[in-house]
Each structure stands twice: as structure tokens, then as C-alpha cells.
């Protein structure tokens, strides 16, 4: 069987880990297969879990989270016959498939939609814990907004600097209210459990919100403009589907291969006009074609857009 390892957030973080979980579940539903899983509780466990699954004969072993990199570096060589799939980070080993996502381009697209949907010309972003990955989201988003409406204002807030920043929906909500009072009428939450508070408050206060990672449109139907889908679920699903045959190497999930995208479904259909779709699709095409370059915050830890 394949195995899935979730990072410290836990598989129900309504976000990244949960997306991975959904992918695995989808695979179960469609193939009727079964898989083993583990939720990390201590950093020291990373290597332990990897080995345990590998020895257990699980193949492939899929792990969600950049923090696995160093552990995998050491484990992978010991199990040449086991395939490992690492999401969000690159490990260069013959039996490792590294999948990274262009969060910035996906965020760019939702930024475009946000700018189009905003009536006040002010939109905002609530991040979870203040780490570079989240800034990558924020920066792509800001670029998308500015590209669409050069004199739009983008308010960026991070919830905190400790892991509790992922689990503080109340503060998420307060940050959102603060942004609303500064004129924001579209808020993009990339903050795990904290994000739930953001979407909730956006709905309560009658503004639009943008979900993250998995399709969160259904959480507050009619209030969530769209979700920046980082198709971790697909990555997991496909890895599971490929099974032991999953092929090693570097694999960038971007707009082109639907690794990242904006979510459209019945819950937000009413919020997004034909014209908006046209524009965002244009942007998407532009990025894929390379006409539009979206700056990746990670490249130099700076952002041109704010």
C-alpha cells in the first residue's frame, strides 16, 4: 500500500494537509485501495516515520511539507526500492519525486479576481505564521491585484510568529475586521485553521473572501469569491495512482498542468462574471506563455508589489 505522512498541522488543517488527505481519499474512493497514514507530532519523528513505512513495505511513501527534506535526504538512499514523493520541496535522489507548486502564479490569478471583484479598490491578505512560504502567496496575490488595478491598495497581515498562528481563528477574524475597516472588501486567507475565522468573518461582515490550498468555496457559499487551489490533492492522488511506478525526479506543478488554479463551482458561480473569467484566463494564458512574469518571493525574499 502507499503511505501518506501529514505534517505537524495535522490532516484536518482545512488547508495544505487536508488537501493531501482529500487526494488520498479520492484515490481510495475510485480504486477501492487502502493506504497507511501518520500525523507528525514531533519533529524528531520525521525520519522515524519514513523508515517505518519504508520497512513496512509501503510504496510509494508520500509526505506533505517542505520540512521533510533533510530527513528524506538521509532516508531515501537506505531504501532504493521504495519510491518517495516529497511535496513542496526538492530532494535530489534517484528514488524521490519532488513536487513543488507555483503558489505565486496561482495567487496571482486570485489576485486578479480579487481586484476585479473589489469595489473599494482595497483588498487584503491574512497569512498564518509569518514564514517565507506564506509571503510567496501574499506577494503573488499582490502582484495580481496591482496588475489588474495599479492603484489598488493591498493590506497584508500575518497572524503571528509561533505555530499557534495556524490555530487562532479568533485573531484571524479580528485581523479581517481590521482590514475591512481600512476599506478592504476582498480578503485572501492563507492561514490554516486561522483562515476559517477569516472566511467566517468575511461572510459575517458581508465581504468576499478567497480560500486557499483546497477548494474552500463551500465553507461560506456565496461569500468565498474563489479559492487558490494548490492541487496537493492531485499530486497525492496521482502518486497513489501511479503506485510503485511513480517516477522520480523534479516536478513543477504550475498553471499549465493545473497544479495551481482558481476554484470555480456552484458556490461562487454567482460571484464571478463572464468578463472576470475572460480577464483571469487571459492572465493565466499570459503567464503560461511567459508574457507575464510573476515574481517569486522565495527567489530573493523581496516583493515588488508591496
Amino acid at each position, binding site marked *: 500500500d502507499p503511505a501518506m505522512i501529514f505534517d505537524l498541522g495535522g490532516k484536518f488543517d482545512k488547508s495544505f494537509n487536508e488537501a493531501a488527505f482529500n487526494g488520498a481519499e479520492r484515490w481510495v474512493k475510485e480504486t477501492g485501495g487502502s493506504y*497507511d*497514514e*501518520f*500525523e507528525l*507530532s*514531533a*519533529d*524528531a*519523528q520525521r*525520519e*522515524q516515520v519514513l*523508515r*517505518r513505512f519504508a520497512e513496512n513495505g509501503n510504496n510509494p511513501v508520500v509526505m506533505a511539507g*517542505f*520540512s521533510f*527534506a*533533510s530527513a528524506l535526504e538521509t532516508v531515501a538512499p*537506505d531504501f532504493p526500492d521504495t519510491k518517495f514523493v516529497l511535496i*513542496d*520541496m526538492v530532494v535530489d535522489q534517484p528514488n524521490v519525486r519532488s513536487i513543488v507548486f507555483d503558489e505565486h502564479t496561482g495567487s496571482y490569478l486570485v489576485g486578479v479576481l480579487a481586484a476585479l471583484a473589489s469595489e473599494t479598490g482595497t483588498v487584503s491578505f491574512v497569512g498564518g*505564521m*509569518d*514564514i*517565507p*512560504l506564506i509571503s510567496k502567496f501574499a506577494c503573488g496575490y499582490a502582484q495580481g491585484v496591482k496588475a489588474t488595478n495599479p492603484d489598488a491598495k493591498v493590506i497584508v497581515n500575518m497572524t503571528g*510568529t*509561533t*505555530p499557534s498562528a495556524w490555530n487562532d481563528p479568533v485573531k484571524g477574524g479580528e485581523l479581517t475586521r481590521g482590514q475591512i475597516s481600512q476599506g478592504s472588501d476582498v480578503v485572501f486567507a492563507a492561514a490554516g485553521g486561522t483562515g476559517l475565522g477569516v472566511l467566517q468573518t468575511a461572510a459575517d461582515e458581508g465581504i468576499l473572501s478567497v480560500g486557499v490550498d483546497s477548494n474552500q468555496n463551500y465553507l461560506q457559499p456565496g461569500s468565498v469569491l474563489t479559492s487558490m487551489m494548490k492541487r496537493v490533492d492531485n499530486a497525492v492522488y496521482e502518486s497513489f495512482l501511479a503506485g510503485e511506478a511513480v517516477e522520480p525526479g523534479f516536478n513543477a506543478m504550475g498553471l499549465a498542468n493545473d497544479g495551481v488554479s482558481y476554484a470555480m463551482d456552484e458556490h461562487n458561480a454567482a460571484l464571478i462574471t463572464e468578463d472576470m473569467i475572460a480577464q483571469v484566463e487571459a492572465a493565466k494564458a499570459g503567464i503560461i506563455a511567459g508574457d507575464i512574469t510573476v515574481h517569486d518571493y*522565495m*527567489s*530573493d*525574499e523581496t516583493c515588488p508589489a508591496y
Partner: protein
Amino acid sequence: MNKMPRWADVALIPFINLLIAFVISGIVLAAIGTNPFDALATMIEGSFGSSRGVGYTLYYATNFIFTGLAMAIASHARMFNIGGEGQAAIGGLGVAVILLAVPWPHWTLALPAAIVFGGLFGAAWAFIPAYLQAKRGSHIVITTIMFNFMAAALTGYLLTGPMKVKGKMAAETAAFPPGTHLPTFHEMLAPFGIEFSKHAPANISFLVALLCCLFFWVLMWHTRLGYQIRALGHSETASKYAGISPAKIMIITMLISGAFAGLMAVNNVMGEAERMIHNAVEGAGFIGIAVALMGRNHPIGVILAAILFGFLWQGGAELQFVYGIPREMVTVIQAIVILLTGALDYMVRGPVERIFLMRANSKKRA
């Protein structure tokens, strides 16, 4: 006053406490639909069944010995150092700083340096609360709690800012130079032809921890400082009469306490992660409270209690593998142990004492 034999106090009572804790936990497990006995079997198998299991159990135990000693020495001076968490985190900072600053050629040089810096940083973080308690009577429990949060903020700032590697995602420092790699049990035991799993984090820091226990024992019961610490813990007025300066002893005790906590970094930061990761202490500081309570503030007891909690952590992971029981189950057990051995101690002690008194009296009559 000894109402019962010593063995009852140091062994029987903790055992009964533990028993009750397990029974309650068993009930919780049963309530969420797991056979507690299978669960226990799984935990034991997972934590002692293989050399790797043991390796993990002892790795956790090592952390808990350090934080347990930190708590214990403070208690001997009748202070409640709830700040182990923060002191351990800052200790990690010290270790990281020195290990990154110098291109260490060999661990034999790096380890002493790490011990010194981990200790110093931990002690430094304990100093202000200690000073405020000693000189201004600010309640050390509150101040150390506050310092835990400040430590989290400080390390958070450093690890997402100045100390983070540019372009890397993780809130952590660069990996330490290879020269700082500490021998794991595998590497340590191989020369003696003992086969120990290559892949368990338990490392030479465990011996450092044991040495700390020895040091603790000598300090407490064979040195003047220990004598003065215990005297102060029992009676401050008497200590003044004896020419012992309470303020001085309090501060020294807390410095040692903080140093013990800081030394934990030698195990988890230097020995395991080999770089400093954000909030790597993961609650070990608080478990130190439980460990010291169970261990009756005695090094031997601390070692045993630490191994018990190491078993709980490793076994807890096993429970998750096998039954998907959330890791928080361990937190529950830990809570119950603290409650019973600490706050509800008398609930068990009272009846036991009465039993012994009865037996004593009946002997007298006979």
C-alpha cells in the same frame, strides 16, 4: 515527619499514582473504542520492542531528564520553575550560535562548547525571573511563564529573520557543520560489537544527562551549596539565622536550573536535528514538571520518570501508527500523572499513611 517507611514514600506512592493514571487513561481509551490492554501492549512493543524503539524512548527520556532536573533543583529551594520550556528554547539558541560560529573539526570539541553555551543561555534566561524573585519578591511562576512566551517570540523572530537561511522555507537555522555530529547509540555501541539501530536519535547526550544526574546528586547531598539549597527550601528564616543568604542561593539555584533546561538543546538541537528548528522543545519543559514530581526531586527518580515519559511519547506515536489514536492521548496521561503526583498527592498518601499508622499501632500493642 515520617509516618511511613521511606520505601513507601519513594516507591509505593508513585507506583499507586501511576497505576491510577493508567486506569483512568485506560477508561478514556476504552471510551474512544480501543482495548486499553492491546494499546498498552502496542506501546510497550513500540518503545522497548526494538533497539530503534528503545533509541527513541531514550532520546525523549534524555530531554526529560534535563528538564526534570531543572524542575527538581528549583523545587529543592522551594521554587516552581515553570520556565523550563523557554530556558530550553534559549539554550538551543546558545547551542546553535556556537556551533554555527565555529567550523568545528570534531564533536569532542564541539560538545563541551555546546554544553557551555546551552547551559549559559538557559541560565541567562532564568536569571531575570530569579533575580526578581530574590530581590523584589516577584512571583517566579508568573515571571517564568511570561519568559516562556518571550522566548517563543524571540526564537520566532530570529528563526524567521536573522538566523534563517535566505531562500529556504523552513523557520530554522542552517545545518551545523559535520564536525558537530554527535555519536548516536549505533556509533557508540558498534565498537563493543553491540548492534543498535542506526536510525534512532538517541545519542551521547544521554550520557551527558546521566552525568548531570550524578552531578545533581553530589551537589544536593554532598556539597555545601546543596546543603544550603535544601535548607533554604525548608525554612528561609532558619537559613537567615544560619548565615545563608536566601537571595544568593535562590539565584544560584535558578541559574543551575536554567542551565539544566538549556542543556536539553545538546540532545534535541545538536544531537537530533543538527540545526535549530522553531519551537523544537515541544513541551518537554512542562513534562519536566511531571518528571520531577514523580521522581520526588531525586536524580534516580528523575531518570526513571523520564524514561516513563519517554515511553509514553514513543508508545504514543505507536498508538497512532496502529490505532490512529491522536497523540494528545499522551498529553492526557501526562496531565493525570501531574495531577495525581502533584496536586492530588495527599488523596493517595493519606490513606496509605493511615494504613501504615494502623499497622504500626497494632505492632505497639502486640
